[in-house]
């Protein structure tokens, strides 16, 4: 194609000759590009965020002593906490060590003691591994070194509220703690008293020991499995396993939801591309007269097709660049609406969706190939 400036001049004229058509084409291509980039971006982001959302379910991995069963009540050494990984899949892993003691508890000033489970805790993120609602809470009192938290049912039984003190005792060993919160989880935690780990260790006379560690690990089901395997290797004396109730349900739900999302996105993208393509082909057929004229003044079929392909590519690039940019901006806003946090734009999505738009645009020019069989004379005579 020796005559390059002329070629591009024709392309330019083809594009700008009819502004109405130009607008229609850009609208269709841009809409397709916008939805492609928005959905792709949102889909990548949503799957990642879904794993984070699952953490609303609380601890999903537990570390217990190897010989622990209901009857022997073995314990672990407290030092295992230091050896726990701080993050998985780029997200911090809340981990809390528990030591359970069955002791006797009474409200300060009362003599009537009742048996209750005292749970000593240590670690970051108690509220993450033990989801529930704090019906009462005082941040001020939480700083108290002898602060403790009462389960809703236990608080009712001992008639304590935030600010009251509890006496704890177990086989002659005693401690006092000040309630800074009342927590309702609906589970066994409602009946327990949560103290500092050291307090429970003193009461149980088990210094440096813990019953178990609960972790809330973020990640896809596979990534959580790998986390468990790696941790098992690192802690040979302990039994690390997923909490089956959550692990199974989470895996199932994750697969369902991400499958649903992927399938919906694929179908929507496919249909949208086809829809754009059909609309564009409709526009392209209109070029019959142009093709007839070009052929009449001596343009070879190859040359003519190349001209229209160049036009399609230019349109695809322009429509794709504008539409995809809008789409990514849109997905940031959508992410904010759904997850409350703006979706992170993935820059890989931009070239991908521009690429798809160019392909759609070229494919839409496909009917022009059939125009190669047009005889110029019949076009000029107005026979359609």
């Amino acid at each position, binding site marked *: 194609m020796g005559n390059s400036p002329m070629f591009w001049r024709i392309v330019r004229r083809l594009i700008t000759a009819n502004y109405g058509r130009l607008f229609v084409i850009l609208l269709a291509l841009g809409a397709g590009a916008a939805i492609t980039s928005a959905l792709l971006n949102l889909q990548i982001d949503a799957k990642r965020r879904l794993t984070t959302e699952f953490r609303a379910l609380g601890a999903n991995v537990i570390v217990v002593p190897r010989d622990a069963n*209901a009857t022997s009540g073995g314990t672990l050494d407290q030092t295992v906490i230091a050896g726990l990984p701080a993050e998985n899949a780029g997200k911090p892993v809340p981990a809390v060590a528990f030591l359970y003691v069955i002791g006797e508890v009474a409200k300060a000033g009362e003599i009537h003691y009742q048996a209750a489970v005292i749970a000593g805790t240590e670690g970051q993120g108690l509220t993450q591994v033990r989801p529930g609602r704090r019906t009462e809470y005082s941040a001020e009192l939480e700083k108290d070194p002898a602060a403790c938290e009462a389960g809703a049912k236990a608080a009712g039984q001992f008639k304590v509220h935030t600010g009251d003190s509890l006496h704890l005792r177990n086989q002659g060993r005693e401690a006092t703690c000040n309630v800074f919160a009342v927590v309702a989880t609906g589970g066994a935690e409602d009946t327990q008293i949560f103290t500092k780990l050291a307090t429970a260790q003193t009461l149980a006379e088990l210094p440096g020991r813990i019953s178990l560690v609960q972790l809330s690990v973020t990640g896809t089901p596979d990534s959580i499995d790998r986390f468990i395997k790696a941790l098992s290797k690192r802690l040979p004396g302990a039994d690390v396993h997923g909490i089956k109730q959550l692990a199974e349900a989470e895996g199932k739900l994750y697969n369902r939801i991400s499958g649903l999302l992927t399938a919906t996105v694929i179908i929507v993208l496919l249909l949208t591309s086809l829809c754009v393509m059909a609309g564009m082909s409709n526009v392209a057929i209109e070029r019959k007269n142009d093709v007839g004229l070009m052929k009449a003044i001596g343009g070879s079929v190859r040359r003519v097709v190349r001209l229209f392909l160049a036009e399609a590519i230019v349109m695809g690039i322009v429509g794709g660049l504008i539409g995809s940019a809008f789409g990514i901006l849109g997905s940031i806003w959508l992410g904010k609406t759904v997850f409350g946090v703006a979706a992170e734009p993935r820059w890989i999505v931009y070239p991908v969706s521009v690429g798809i738009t160019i392909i759609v645009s070229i494919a839409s020019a496909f009917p022009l190939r059939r125009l190669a069989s047009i005889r110029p004379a019949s076009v000029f005579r107005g026979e359609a």
Partner: protein
Amino acid sequence: MFLRLVADSFTRRPKRKMLTLAALALGMAVATAALSVSLDVGDRLAQEFRSLGANLLVTPEADSLPLEIGGVDYRPANAGAYLPEADLGKLKTIFWRHNIKAFAPILEAQVKASPFSEYSLSDSPSWPAFTVIGTWVNHEVKIPDGTTYVTGIEKTNPWWQLKEGRWFREGGNECVIGKNLAAAMGTRLGELPGSGGVVAKDKLKPGSTLFTYTLNGHLGPKLDVVGVLDTGGPEDNAIVVPLDIAQSLAGKPGEYRRLYVSALTKPEDAFGRKDPKSMTPAEFDRWYCSPYVSAIALQIGQELKGTDVRVIRRVAEGEGTILTRVRTLLWLVTFAALAAAALAVGASAAASVLERRTEIGLMKALGAGSGLVGVLLAAEQLLVAFVGGGIGYAVGILLARLLGEKIFGFTPEPKLFLLFIVLVLASFITLLGSAYPLRRASQYDPAPILRGE
């Protein structure tokens, strides 16, 4: 004549019309598929979330504090309150009875058990006591209205799965044994006097027999092991038996201590979280008649007297957050798809009007008014919209079906009102897309068009 003109434009250039039609049908297929998935997905996902297990826990109201660690209650059998098993049928009489998907009562007891003769146990103080969990499996509950309902722990706690064998049958002396206990009991058998010091290497497995001996010195039933249970929880160290056997072992006939209820609920919104005590009567009615987990808890409490019904927060709230997010997400995808389809279809409609300038010019030259030309073209577009919308609806329903089967293993019901929505949408979009070019067309001066300028 009018109809003839419309019909003629279809038969004269079928290929052209086919493309407009295809664009429309595809656009409407996106709309139908996305809409029907979004409409159905909430209910389907709510069902899926039941694999997380019970979201309500019922315990006696006037009770001593349970000494529960890791799912096992360490209170002695004579401490604390119990609830009557006979009342449980009332659960299926509450307002939201159809939302109660499953329930199972639990009663625990401590027992000595060995695969040898029961007498050997009395001589062996070192042999530990085991936890026996009594519950329902495939249990037929009598409902006060005269019907029966089958439910059990395998429905409330779907992660209680059998590694070997089958679940026990009620009425027989059968039990299922936790996988850790099955292994541990085998290795400790040598400690029993009756074993003659032989350590059995075999685990307990379906086919073994367990002799039981209650802690206060009575002989318990002889249990046939029919299955090995794997729950990943404390039940792996326990013996699971039909509720009536646990009742006789604990000496508490007809009673239970904890009830797990699995209910289909609506995620709690700001209104659902309101304290019912602070509501106006109208608000209370609306709240009571919505399947919020807290409303269902209240209704259960009204039926089962003397109970404390608590919402298991980690399940209920986790479910609520995730469901709301997924639902919003799908609606947004749906609307985005609708918008894109609308733009593409509109563009296609606009193109189909643009290309007909010559025709419009001719019509006007022959004396047609702008209004008539507009109505003629609009009628054509509407016809395309109806046919395209109809085809799109059919394709969309098929796709939604495929999606439903692939992902949830069920086929969504085709919804007829979607057809209506899709047709309205299709007409609206095509007319909107044609409006601007039609306006321009009506302003055309016929002469230059006919001259080909």
